[in-house]
């Protein structure tokens, strides 16, 4: 396939759509930002894309709960289209608010599709925090990233509701068994380090997970905010790299699409 196509979904309160589009285009895809109303009024357009990206922001103000209202729109109005999308081996990426949407819509961890089995709730600090975190890549199950690509990624988080909790121990055990925990918050050396390295109090330091197919990835940190060398905070100390750590995720996704489609 020549140029993979990415649909960056936006709605009221989405605010990381532009930089997400930029990251995908830098990685060689063609990305289009589409409003949910346009998609709902013509659901077939989803078929034209190989990747659905749910970017960060505060959809509907995060009123009721972060990502909840958009999750309901997807769950109750796009169920079949999303099922077909996944069955066609296509990819879904949810970043920050997008991750919250995927979890609330029951698309992650998704032992039973569209059935909510986990949640992302208020940070232990009960406040929004913007800070840089180290992520250990813990599994090779996701098409977006594998351990061989990099031992640790350095990315920013910016959220108030990022504490991952599973419904019960069963769900958590299954996620561990299936290697669905893709990212864990760690310190610089890859060790478990508590707050603020784990910025929200997530169970098992979970920062990002995938579904059982490896096609859906949700993560609280923002890879699209570290694709260019000048985006990382320490570049004036360490010098400019070729690209930021987050770029890997977009590059891998584009690579996958080029190979499969």
């Amino acid at each position: 396939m020549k140029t993979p196509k990415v649909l960056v979904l936006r709605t009221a309160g989405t605010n990381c759509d532009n930089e997400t589009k930029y990251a995908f285009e830098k990685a060689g895809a063609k990305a289009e930002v589409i409003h949910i109303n346009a998609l709902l009024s013509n659901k077939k357009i989803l078929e034209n894309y190989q990747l659905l990206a749910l970017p960060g922001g505060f959809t509907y103000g995060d009123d009721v709960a972060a990502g909840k209202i958009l999750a309901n729109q997807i769950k109750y109005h796009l169920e079949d289209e999303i099922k077909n999308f996944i069955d066609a081996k296509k990819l879904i990426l949810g970043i920050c608010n997008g991750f919250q949407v995927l979890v609330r819509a029951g698309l992650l961890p998704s032992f039973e599709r569209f059935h909510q089995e986990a949640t992302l709730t208020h940070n232990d600090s009960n406040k929004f925090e913007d800070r840089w975190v180290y992520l250990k890549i813990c599994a090779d199950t996701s098409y977006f990233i594998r351990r061989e690509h990099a031992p640790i990624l350095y990315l920013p988080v910016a959220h108030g509701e990022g504490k991952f909790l599973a419904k019960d121990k069963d769900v958590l055990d299954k996620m561990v068994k299936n290697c669905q925990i893709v990212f864990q918050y760690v310190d610089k050396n890859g060790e478990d380090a508590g707050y603020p390295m784990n910025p929200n109090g997530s169970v098992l330091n979970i920062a990002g997970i995938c579904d059982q197919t490896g096609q859906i990835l949700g993560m609280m940190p923002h890879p699209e905010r570290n694709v260019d060398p000048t985006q990382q905070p320490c570049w004036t100390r360490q010098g400019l790299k070729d690209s930021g750590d987050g770029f890997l995720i977009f590059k891998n996704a584009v690579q996958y699409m080029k190979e499969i489609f």
Partner: protein
Amino acid sequence: MHSRIEVFLKDEYADPLGKNVISEIETFGFAKVKNIRVRQVYIFFGKLTENELDTIAKKLLADSVTQHYLCTSDSSHQPPHEHFHIIEVSRKPGVMDPVEQSVIKALRDINISVDGVKTAHKYMIDASVPAEAIPVIAAKVLANTNIEDVFIYPEIPKYRQTVFSAPFKKKIIPLINAQDVQLEKISVEGQLSLNIHEMRAIQQYYTTLRREPTDIELETIAQTWSEHCVHKTLKGRICFNGKIIDNLLKNTVMKATEELNAPWCVSVFKDNAGIIEFDEEYNVCFKVETHNHPSAIEPYGGANTGIGGVVRDIMGTGLGAKPILNTDVFCFGMPDTPPEKIPKGALHPKKVFKGVVAGVRDYGNRMGIPTVNGAIYFDERYIGNPIVFCGTAGIIPKNMCQKESRPDDLIVVVGGRTGRDGIHGATFSSAELHEQSEHMSGGAVQIGNAITEKMTLDTLLQARDRGLYNCITDCGAGGLSSAVGEMGQHTGACVYLEKVPLKYEGLSYAEIWISEAQERMVLSVPREKEKEVLALFNAENVEATVIGHFTGDNMLRLYYQSEMVGELEMDFLHNGLPRLEREAIWSAPGFEEPFLPEKENYGTDLKKLLSEWNVCSKEWVIRQYDHEVQGGSVLKPLQGVQNDGPGDACIVKPVLWRNKGIIVSNGMNPRYGDIDPYHMAASAIDEALRQIISVGGNLERVALLDNFCWGNTNKPDRLGSLVMAAQACYDIAVAYGTPFISGKDSLNNEFITETETIVIPPTLLISAISVLDDVRHAVSMDAKEPGNLIYLVGVTRNELGGSHYYHIHGHKGKNVPVVNAFSGKKTMNTLSIATARGIVRSCHDCSEGGLAVAAAEMAFAGGYGMELDLSQAVVESEITRNDTILFSESNTRFLVEVKPEHKIEFEAVMKDVSHGLLGKIRQEPCLKIIGLNNTTIIEEDIYALKEAWQSPLRW
């Protein structure tokens, strides 16, 4: 009849909101509390079956993992609880609650319709708290009774849908035959804030018309003539120490711009924001506003709508710019003020502080605009009258910077609906605060809805790019009256007020006209584009409504239900304001230099300075702001090896695929103003500029904004100090070659109690914006590598007047820092050559706390020590004291880190500029400073210094 759903965390989960409330209650010392659980309450109006209620709770409101819910189909009875005190807090009818709108939208997605929704918080406080503490906790911690209703159980919470009623009746105000006393009464009772000269001018106008005015006409005039909208003091005649200044702004701030005549200034002092050139495709615009009085009464809402307002300024600049960054500067009373010292009618500074930060955070983060720059300043005198500056920069295509509404264009209002909120904001902001303001002016206080504004922005930029309108402005202070009046100034306009979409029924035609309801913009749309415009907004659920049209007869005509309710000549409205002459005086206050005994060691003083409220780390605030959204952040507000050092200025790349950036910084020194407002203003400009130089910028394309916040300038001494400051703005801006492009003033910042009037210190905020050709030349402030050399660039003088060093010892002093703009400019230009060559490894400007504080910050941000020798600093000849060199706040000074291999090159570049090689960076984490007498005067562990700097605001 209404039903109710309560959603709450399962017992096994800690309640972070409850925990916050507990710590809040304990900080204010109201009670010891063991446990608070908070329930989110949703009230539904309209008939719902039990099944439907359960569906709503299950599908929408409750999180199946962490929460339980409780449905009650008739909530008229709420039993008290034996283990808890219960307080329920809900916004008053008519006060914005964004959650209500979102829930109604979300219910449609699951096919359930209701008549209305209200939300509340139910606080369950453990019963061991004494009952008498409960009302205090409710009023001081949980609720702001200006905008919220409080129910303490067993009182039954009463909820009703927002319904007002006001039968239409055209109101005439008899004025023609009124005596002066009556004229003043009309002004006061109508909250018009017009003085007797202005009332007489209006009387005269109507006498020639041979008719009496309607209420809406008077409101329109009052709003158009308000200090907030026309700056009549600064543009009026001022008699300063006997000399007449006709239009202070024109003779100082604007004159500098005119004389400098920079070719890259695109639009100055006329649009919503100043515009300068960025690159071949885009321009950049910048505006800073104040929102002081609303923030004094309701800090969260005040700051929230402050940000919302300045963002709309940017959305309404030219044909509409895209906001790319926010900057916020606040002034508060001391956060550790004992509660009993708080004047009646004022909120505790800590509460104001927290509320303001939360308001800015929630609006800015939701809008997706990074908050990248700011400052917080504390002084006892801001206790009743905090200052909230909100600034936004935007980017706009070059060919979209001009606009003009045309006769016969339709007037289209887009965005939020109009309600009874914010009536009289323009006139209220032009008056003083007093003990009763907290209660009387509640109507002028609002809560914003950032998502409505974000949706409006998203659609507006599409409409702009499709060329669907000729002109745009925001609805700010003065509401539609101001927006339509401004856009139709050269055409005339006709408005049908019943067409304006309302949040609820019952507004009078005058209220519709002057309501300052948030999140609205006004467009001038050619008739042939009407359908396309309405369809575009409708496609994304943004309301757009035609409410009238522009004419060609220069008349403003207002109709309500086919009756004309107002008719005014645009000429009188915009040019009829009588010019005022005010008296201004200034004389030096006669402070003296104190005598402080010299010490052998200044380590303790340095730590004290680092812990001073104005110096200490503001990380607690900065982290709550998303400073990286949009992906353009190049130099972040927090810098260094652990991302926690205090950056001098921020750099943002507005176009991700290009390496061109913009720099934003600010300068402010209210305490210098007590000694000399001229040098205060000069120093503020110097500070803003040297921060731009510090991060790798240069003076070639720097534009300034002025924001004057002063006391009551009807009093000659207050106005005198303002005149001095404005004069410095002219002198220094011209000398540095940095034009002003926009500005704003907020006068009358005084708080009147029974016993005294608390006047804020003269507060001039200078904001600077600059273009950096290649962001890869940016320089951060953290020490980089051991062995590198540390230079002090600039001259240190005996200028401790108004310094933080004197302040911690209880003195003011006399020798305020002055600016030598000739040598200052040369210093800045030369240093920027060095940074452009890439031979500056780090750079930090010397500001609050002087050289010692700057060195400490640089060291602990980098995680390395330093050894510095004061005898190598370039000083004025008569300085013999170590503390003067350590802590003097002399302007135009920088600490610069240079690699040893660049020593020769750096010194060659700097040869004509004062600089001294003070020492170098050391691996060992210790800041060691050798004094003039060759003994060690500071030797402190950098982590201990950092702890002193971080601990005060670790909330």
